[in-house]
């Protein structure tokens, strides 16, 4: 039920390492079209392609294969189906392109908010798959960079707040001033071989637990 499962290109071992050929999962119920898509992609580059014919097996296959890209062709999804597929494909971990023949339900916003990197209302046309996939990959990377940057910036801000909070707690608990509180945090961090932010977080958490 979960498809033909053929692999168009075997992983090459290069000097004991795997090749970096992109691995692609194509979800395409129409077997003939699937063949055409695989041929079209093969012409365009060196890919490791797995075709599955029904979306029901997607989550499992993704767990097993950890593909670099997922391409999903689906005639005219309902919102629930769309969200379920988007979730199963892991659109925050890899580029996911979704092709629908018709978008009767006006699901573009939902698809994009769910994180798919391309949402194409015209079905999966073999000759057009490659540029759409490339755009999806480029967009995914750009988005991923920004997400990383945002996460790291938040982490930095969070750490500073944690340190301030721990300082405040020490000032109250020990009756010391801000300098001394920080010195205490820093000394504890050095003694324990940890970062000041970690010690501060531990202190704040412990206080929360004791609270």
């Amino acid at each position, binding site marked *: 039920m979960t498809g033909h499962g053929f692999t168009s290109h075997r992983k090459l071992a290069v000097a004991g390492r795997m090749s970096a050929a992109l691995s692609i999962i194509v979800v395409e119920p129409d077997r003939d079209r699937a063949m055409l898509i695989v041929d079209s992609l093969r012409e365009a580059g060196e890919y490791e392609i797995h075709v599955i014919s029904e979306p029901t097996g997607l989550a499992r296959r993704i767990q097993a294969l950890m593909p670099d890209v997922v391409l999903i062709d689906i005639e005219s999804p309902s*919102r629930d189906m769309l969200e379920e597929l988007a979730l199963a494909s892991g659109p925050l971990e890899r580029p996911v392109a979704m092709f629908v023949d018709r978008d009767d339900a006006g699901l573009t916003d939902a698809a994009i908010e769910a994180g798919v990197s391309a949402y194409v209302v015209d079905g999966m046309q073999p000759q057009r798959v490659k540029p759409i996939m490339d755009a999806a990959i480029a967009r995914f990377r750009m988005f991923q960079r920004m997400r990383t940057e*945002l996460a790291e910036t938040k982490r930095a*801000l969070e750490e500073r707040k944690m340190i301030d909070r721990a300082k*405040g707690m020490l000032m109250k*608990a020990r009756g010391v001033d801000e300098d001394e509180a920080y010195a205490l945090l820093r000394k504890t961090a050095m003694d324990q071989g940890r970062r000041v932010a970690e010690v501060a977080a531990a202190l704040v958490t412990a*206080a929360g637990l004791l*609270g």
Partner: protein
Amino acid sequence: MIAATLSVGFLPLVDAAPLIVAHEMGFAAEESIAIELRRAPSWSSVRDMLSFGRVEAAHMLSPVPVAAALGLGGTGTPLSAVSVLSANGDVIGVSNELAARMREGGHDFAFNDARAAGAALITHAARPLRLGVPFPFSMHAELLYYWLSALGLPAPQSVDIRTVPPSLMADALEAGEIDAFCVGEPWGSMAVENGVGTLLLPGNAIWRFSPEKVLAVRSDWADAEPELMGRLIRAVWRAGRWLAEPGSPMLAAELLSRSQYLDLPPEILDRALTGRLVISPQGEERTVPGFVEFHHNAATFPWRSQAEWIGLQLAARTGLDRATAARSAASVFRSDIYRAALAPTRAELPGASAKREGALDAPTAVPGASGHLTLGPDSFFDGRIFEPSQS
């Protein structure tokens, strides 16, 4: 293309967050509207700004439009609550002196037991207990009345209720004008921070899911500008959804801290937004799940049953006819407008527009317009359940 600029009145409170975020994070712009936020010093001022047409919409105490519909207070201008902005978010605090007496009497300030906290307060407070609330028609007042009355101190009859704007609550406590208060954050935390008070209970220890603030508009404006109002409701709904994301509270605290909004250190605002409150000048911490809710559990759905509960509380105190009050009140929470506005979004809407208030002790799946929706616990501390007559 900006279709219109809408003026929106607000009070400097953490639960003004959906409006501030809708503006700052661009959710208003996504709906092709601009929001011009106008800070007001008190609730009567916000209400008057709205009634007299100086703003199109306002951050409003949920009982205010209900009271107006019942002919209580206000200018006679009919107001509508087209969305709830937030559930919960109030705190009850006591003076340090009263806190000390309660501690001596054995109260543990566990911050989660309304019965124990209320009993200790009633036992140790001087008579009459002087209570500060931000406005006579407020969830703050309703929670205090419900709680104290249920514990044998008939309120408001046997207590001395004083109206104090939120930002002056700590001063009133320090000046000895009140013994205790119920106020929206961050003004409870500011009383702690200034060393003048100790927090006794979060509002949701009395009622697990109370409609705290609403997005209020003049009813005639709602009729005249359904499209603009829809844009505003959607922008605010998206802001609330963003606020519920795990990484957002920290950034929201930064936005709210700016001088044109709350003008307070973000660290103080973090407390309410993360539900980790410092309850005493000694630095004791308490964690309160669901301290303030902007999105989950259909927090922004204006249940007609919530309005009816408020209306019946007001009617009981003022001697109004219960059936009329229930009907008038229920019509103020415009679940119809809210549904229409959110239809183009991915919001999961409940199938019904009224519910038995207080009936849920745990998260519960209920039928939604498409699929299912989870509602959170909404019980009252004394276990009572309110059966709405309207739906």
